[in-house]
């Protein structure tokens, strides 16, 4: 019953989104605002109906309605309720519906929010977002339906893949999707600006919070994925440069470039075409990410070909989005010419230019590595993989370059500084960085990249701290405030700038984590009998015994390992789990997480009657990655708090320049 309600709601929602696409266009062309309001009402109703559809599918899961094919394929009676609910996005049919729902919801919020403030853009925004949502709904209804019934319902379902029965995996897709879908709003405003020809900075100011929000969600989603890979997959790492991971990383890189380059447009009226290009690319890559992961094309091109209808539709959809938006950009390009030129290579804008260069090249690197194997497989006869070594070789230098720019950034000003004064302000941080690098090379870090990272991190910290310190001193002498008050005042006056600083600190921590765990991981593969001990790094591990344990829908063999280390003694319990309804065992790694390093133990198969295989990793600084991402999240939240004050000031300046005829 519920699935039919959901199905019907989705059909009506599709019709409404088609109305939402066409009505505002009619309204603008015939000068009849009532049609634009029709479009708005349609978007609100579509959001409501898709919410109903989502509820219908979730209720079918909770009712164990295995006559619904999607439920039968992704749940079972033994699945706990939490995972029953989240199994909604356990397969591609449900995730596409979820995507469309988020899209409709965000559209409704954006339309409600910007209705009176951006009246000129809203009709086109409605139309563009309606078109994208309807595109997804057609896919959901005709090619990848979660509403199908089985004529011969099984008694029990096939269960959710045990690897997905993990909190990390539960939150990974929705956050990613919120990021992907969120970028649709700035994308729509950008395209709306291109269509109505009023290509000022309005679209950037209107969507600044959307961009930050989406970027925050995407970042969080990626981190959840990495965390899941680290805790659940049991291979000692968190990022494998798997195409599925790359699919979410590409839009992140381009969106990061966008976040930086919009500042140049706000302050210096430059990079107008470039910013439009970046936001369109970000959204296109978000679509690509969704489709790559959710179409089965990555596991095998043949899997894709086995359902040619879906493949062709997705390719066509992508082609329409890309041709339409880039075509529009080319068509309007001459209106976007700017008279402002880059004046100095030692200016903030030049630093942002290089920042963008590095990030876009990083994006291209990932795109090449992800799509090349697909191209070879589609057009040739052979199959090829691009391994992690490629990405590692390219990414470490790119990351170091970005860190260098991050440190130089605060030392520069808009329009440029004199080389002499730049050199003067560079001296101190550079000395600190060099000293740190040299010292680390002497003491612990025996790898050039490691030492360079330490040096650059110190360089960036010093540059940022100096900037903050100058700000505080100025405030103190101007207002006579105390130091703490001045610091608070400084930060809250420009939350976006200092939120960015906090994000940078998070990135620095993560960079240390990446380099520490990437270059200095220690791995041991061995066979242990009960009572055996092994020493790795500063840890001594004693394998005590194997016991049987049981959970709600799984049974496991669990090793009991006594560990003695600098942090005292504790016990680790790595498991080999077998889930009910599945024959495949899954490993549950046991992890002790410390500031300096993680101890990561994986239980393997029994080798003889009394001995078991173990894999033990010492992963330095991994916890810095998770903590760094937490700091990043704080920084983004802080930046999101930025009220209208600053933006209005800039917006006014923008309109003034507009009237002057720029």
């Amino acid at each position, binding site marked *: 019953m519920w699935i039919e309600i959901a199905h019907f709601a989705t059909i009506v929602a599709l019709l409404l989104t088609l109305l939402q696409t066409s009505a505002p266009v009619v309204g603008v062309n015939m000068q009849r605002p009532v049609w634009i309001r029709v479009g708005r009402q349609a978007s609100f109703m579509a959001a409501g109906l898709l919410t109903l559809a989502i509820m219908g599918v979730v209720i079918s899961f909770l009712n164990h309605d295995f006559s619904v094919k999607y439920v039968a394929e992704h749940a079972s009676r033994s699945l706990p309720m939490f995972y029953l609910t989240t199994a909604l996005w356990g397969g591609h049919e449900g995730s596409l519906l979820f995507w469309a729902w988020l899209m409709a919801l965000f559209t409704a919020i954006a339309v409600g929010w910007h209705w009176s403030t951006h009246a000129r853009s809203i009709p086109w925004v409605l139309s563009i977002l309606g078109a994208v949502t309807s595109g997804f709904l057609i896919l959901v209804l005709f090619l990848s339906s979660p509403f199908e019934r089985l004529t011969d319902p099984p008694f029990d379902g096939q269960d959710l893949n045990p690897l997905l029965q993990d909190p990390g995996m539960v939150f990974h897709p929705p956050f990613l999707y919120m990021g992907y879908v969120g970028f649709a709003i700035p994308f729509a405003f950008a395209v709306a600006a291109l269509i109505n020809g009023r290509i000022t900075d309005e679209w950037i100011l209107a969507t600044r919070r959307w961009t930050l929000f989406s970027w925050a969600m995407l970042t969080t989603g990626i981190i959840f994925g990495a965390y899941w890979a680290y805790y659940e997959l049991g291979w000692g790492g968190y990022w494998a440069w798997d195409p599925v991971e790359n699919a979410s990383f590409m839009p992140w890189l381009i969106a990061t470039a966008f976040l930086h380059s919009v500042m140049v447009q706000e302050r210096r009226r430059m990079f107008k075409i470039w910013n439009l290009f970046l936001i369109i690319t970000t959204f296109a890559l978000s679509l690509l990410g969704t489709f790559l992961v959710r179409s089965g094309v990555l596991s095998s091109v043949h899997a894709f070909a086995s359902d040619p209808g879906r493949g062709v539709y997705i390719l066509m959809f992508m082609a329409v989005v890309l041709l339409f938006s880039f075509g529009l950009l080319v068509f309007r390009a001459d209106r976007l010419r700017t008279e402002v030129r880059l004046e100095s*290579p030692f200016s903030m804008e030049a630093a942002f230019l290089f920042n963008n260069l*590095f990030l876009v090249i990083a994006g291209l690197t990932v795109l090449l590595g992800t799509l090349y194997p697909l191209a070879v497989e589609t057009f040739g006869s052979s199959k090829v993989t691009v391994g992690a070594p490629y990405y590692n070789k390219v990414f470490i230098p790119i990351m170091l370059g970005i860190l260098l720019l991050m440190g130089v950034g605060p030392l520069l000003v808009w329009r440029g500084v004199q080389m002499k004064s730049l050199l003067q302000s560079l001296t101190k941080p550079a000395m600190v960085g060099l000293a740190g690098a040299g010292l680390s090379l002497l003491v612990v870090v025996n790898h050039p990249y490691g030492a360079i990272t330490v040096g650059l991190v110190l360089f960036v910290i010093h540059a940022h701290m100096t900037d903050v310190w100058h700000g505080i001193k100025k405030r103190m002498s101007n207002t006579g405030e105390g130091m703490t008050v001045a610091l608070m005042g400084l930060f809250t006056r420009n939350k976006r700038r200092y939120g960015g600083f906090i994000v940078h600190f998070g990135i620095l921590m993560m960079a240390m984590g990446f380099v520490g765990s990437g270059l200095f991981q220690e791995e041991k*593969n061995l*066979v242990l009998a009960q009572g055996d001990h092994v020493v790795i790094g500063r840890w001594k591990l004693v394998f005590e015994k194997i016991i049987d344990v049981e959970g709600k829908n799984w049974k496991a063999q669990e090793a009991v390992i006594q560990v003695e280390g600098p942090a005292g003694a504790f016990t680790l319990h790595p498991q080999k789990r077998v889930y009910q309804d599945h024959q495949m065992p899954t490993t549950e790694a046991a992890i002790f997480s410390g500031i300096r390093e993680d101890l990561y133990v994986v239980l393997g198969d029994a080798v003889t009657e009394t001995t078991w295989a173990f894999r033990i990793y010492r992963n330095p600084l991994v916890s810095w990655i998770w903590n760094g991402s937490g700091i990043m999240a704080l920084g983004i939240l802080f930046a999101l708090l930025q009220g209208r004050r600053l933006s209005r000031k800039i917006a006014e300046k923008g309109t003034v320049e507009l009237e002057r005829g720029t």
Partner: protein
Amino acid sequence: MQANRRLFLILTLLIVCGALGALIWTSFTGSLVYFHTPTEIKEAGADKTGQKVRIGGMVQEGSLVKEAGTLKIRFMVTDGKNQVPVRYEGMTPDLFREGQGVVVEGPWQPGQEFIASSILAKHSEDYIPVEMTPEGIARSKESMLRSLQ
């Protein structure tokens, strides 16, 4: 002065782009690993000597030999027509077992045992528990072989 500065900026941009491009190109061509079935790699023979390759197929039933008390294993990877003997030392993935699909990676030396540096047993997000009937097993084997090619 102004023109000089611009030239300097453009030159720096070009140099950075060129350096990164070269870095990407050399790393890329150096880390491509081609995938072959046992039949393909046997046909390629000496052409691929010393190259890092991936060989995919099924672990032949009855071919898996474990050296007692160690993590050393030997098995045959088969595509139904040809077999490649493989040697590996280390913990095997959860999904690794006889009759299942496997991808081994390592340097190819024709006429010798293939020494795998790593073993992959594909983690698929939507694998379906096999019905334990002869047809069910045959079907799943077939689909697995297909997906590995």
